[in-house]
């Protein structure tokens, strides 16, 4: 046959690239219950849709070529639920998927095309960081950083950390719109070994940058998974709420049967006493499309809940005070969480719904050390630049500055209230102590009289409605119907459901 040598040679080279770091390393991962780079791609993408780019890339150092198939990163294009994506899968079996010139060029190409042609990029990350021999000495001089972290959110970036994540894997995780961390993964600036040496004590990966650190403290893990497969499922779920790029409206899905039923149970989920707390996530789940609530940063700043859901098939972003945790008090971490969620939603044409039930911002020296003042105003800065619809519903109490940060006070285009709403500068009972110096335990009769006088100023839903401070007052069971109508009337028809993206260059990590 003509060209038989060429055909055989090509197949041999292809097989070598497909074999990654070799059968022994792949077997070890399989036995540990961990997928490899190519099996992660197979799991993530629609079958047969992957088109690899740079399969024959290797180390730029000639002597290292044989040891570096694909130069340790498997990159290319594919489809998830028939929608195009770019994929960068770090192959840990090849030099720990360390970053070097060829694989950085591959990665940059996929990212650049995602931005230029309008499709999401998914990072399947696991890396030891930069490949040190390559960058030592004059190697640093060959570095060309370019624009790789100038995030303009032309299209979504999604990261799934599934192992050690140093260097490029960590940077992209933090620059992504959504980052899921599989348990057992470690993300840090430097490795546990390096840190242990520097601190002169043993520091484990878990302590340094495990899932708890990033899910509960830094906020860099938007979700946590028990396995690679669960992490990849979360990636797909997140993308299903978003458009393919910033110039499209999010996809509209059919409304699941039974979506109208949950609203009837809302009064059973709410305590009648204002002193009792509840989990706002149960309320949200009751009135959104059935099983559509997808929480983001569930373990971080828990007194503020953020998540995507669908109402009548349309993606909506929820920011809700959650009294279950710390009474719903608003704090510095909550400000960061709200701000980053606002930026993500607005950048991808997702309307925002605020649900208010908060006693104010957390006060005290620790709050000040955490920079709460600046973070409150950053939140406002972002909120004012939103061009997608904003709707705010006051569920129960809403005191002080938080009332405005949560969309009232002329910010959201629609502000409404449940008939349980109670709005004031502060809780009237606290106001009496501060203004009159009277404590309940010292003189209950005078205290209660002064509280009644404070309340006469009127902060009920109807008091607000009398001056059009809220545009509607309704029964909590009507929340779904209210949102269906408001989202319908406020759809950005003049621009095909697409916003102006004033926040698209906002910093990617603001904690």
């Amino acid at each position, binding site marked *: 046959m003509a060209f038989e040598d060429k055909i055989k040679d090509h197949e041999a080279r292809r097989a070598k690239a497909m074999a990654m770091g070799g059968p022994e390393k792949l077997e070890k991962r399989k036995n540990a219950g961990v997928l490899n780079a190519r099996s992660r791609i197979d799991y993530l993408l629609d079958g047969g849709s992957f088109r690899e780019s740079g399969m024959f890339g290797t180390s730029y150092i000639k002597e290292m070529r044989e040891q570096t198939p694909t130069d340790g990163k498997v990159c290319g294009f594919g489809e998830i639920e028939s929608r195009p994506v770019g994929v960068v899968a770090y192959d840990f079996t090849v030099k720990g998927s360390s970053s070097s010139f060829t694989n950085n060029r591959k990665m940059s190409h996929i990212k650049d095309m995602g931005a230029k042609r309008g499709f999401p990029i998914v990072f399947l990350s696991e890396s030891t960081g930069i490949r040190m021999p390559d960058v030592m000495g004059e190697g640093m001089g060959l570095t060309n950083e370019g624009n790789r972290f100038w995030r303009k959110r032309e299209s979504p970036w999604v990261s799934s950390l599934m192992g050690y994540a140093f260097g490029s894997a960590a940077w992209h995780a933090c620059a992504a719109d959504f980052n899921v961390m599989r348990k057992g993964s470690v993300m840090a600036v430097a490795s546990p070994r390096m840190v242990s040496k520097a601190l002169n004590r043993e520091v484990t990966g878990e302590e340094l940058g495990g899932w708890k650190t990033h899910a509960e403290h830094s906020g860099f893990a938007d979700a946590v998974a028990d396995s690679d497969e669960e992490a990849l499922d979360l990636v797909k779920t997140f993308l299903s709420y978003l458009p393919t790029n910033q110039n499209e409206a999010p996809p509209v899905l059919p409304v699941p049967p039974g979506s109208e039923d949950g609203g009837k149970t809302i009064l059973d989920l709410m305590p009648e006493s*204002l*002193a*009792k*707390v509840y989990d706002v996530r149960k309320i949200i789940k009751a009135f959104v499309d059935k099983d559509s609530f997808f929480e983001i940063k569930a373990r971080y700043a828990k*007194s503020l809940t953020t998540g995507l859901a669908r109402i009548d098939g349309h993606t909506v972003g929820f920011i809700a005070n959650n*009294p*279950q*945790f*710390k*009474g719903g*008090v608003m704090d510095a971490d909550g400000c960061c969480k709200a701000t980053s969620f606002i930026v993500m939603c607005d950048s991808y044409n997702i309307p925002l719904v605020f649900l208010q039930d908060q*006693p104010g911002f*957390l006060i*005290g020296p*620790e709050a000040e050390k955490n920079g709460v003042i600046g973070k409150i105003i950053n939140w406002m800065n972002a909120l004012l630049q939103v061009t997608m619809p904003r709707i705010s519903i006051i569920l129960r109490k809403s005191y002080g500055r938080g009332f405005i940060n949560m969309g009232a006070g002329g910010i959201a285009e629609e502000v409404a209230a449940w008939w349980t709403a109670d709005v004031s500068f502060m*809780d009237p*009972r*606290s106001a009496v102590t501060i203004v009159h110096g009277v404590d309940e335990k010292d003189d209950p009769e005078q205290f209660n009289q002064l509280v009644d006088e404070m309340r006469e100023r009127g902060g009920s839903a109807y008091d607000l409605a009398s001056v059009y401070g809220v545009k509607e007052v309704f029964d909590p069971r009507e929340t779904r119907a209210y949102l269906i109508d408001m989202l319908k009337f406020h759809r950005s028809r003049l621009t095909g459901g697409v916003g102006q993206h004033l926040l698209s260059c906002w910093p990617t990590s603001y904690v």
Partner: protein
Amino acid sequence: MADVDVKVEITGSVWKIVKKVGDKVEEDDEIMILESMKMEIPVLAPEDGTIKSIIVKEGDSVVEDQTVATLEN
């Protein structure tokens, strides 16, 4: 088995202790209830485990980040 500290997330006072030493709890089960900002705020188990110790009593004042109980898991 490692001990896990159950910490309060907000300053307040202990209103009601719901669990006792030896009780098995799952993540997010209520261990005690604080009174703060005129609300009854639950202190939840951070993970699955068995209550090893309850360090406070009803009526005690507590501050943010204070350990009020420990779990064995």
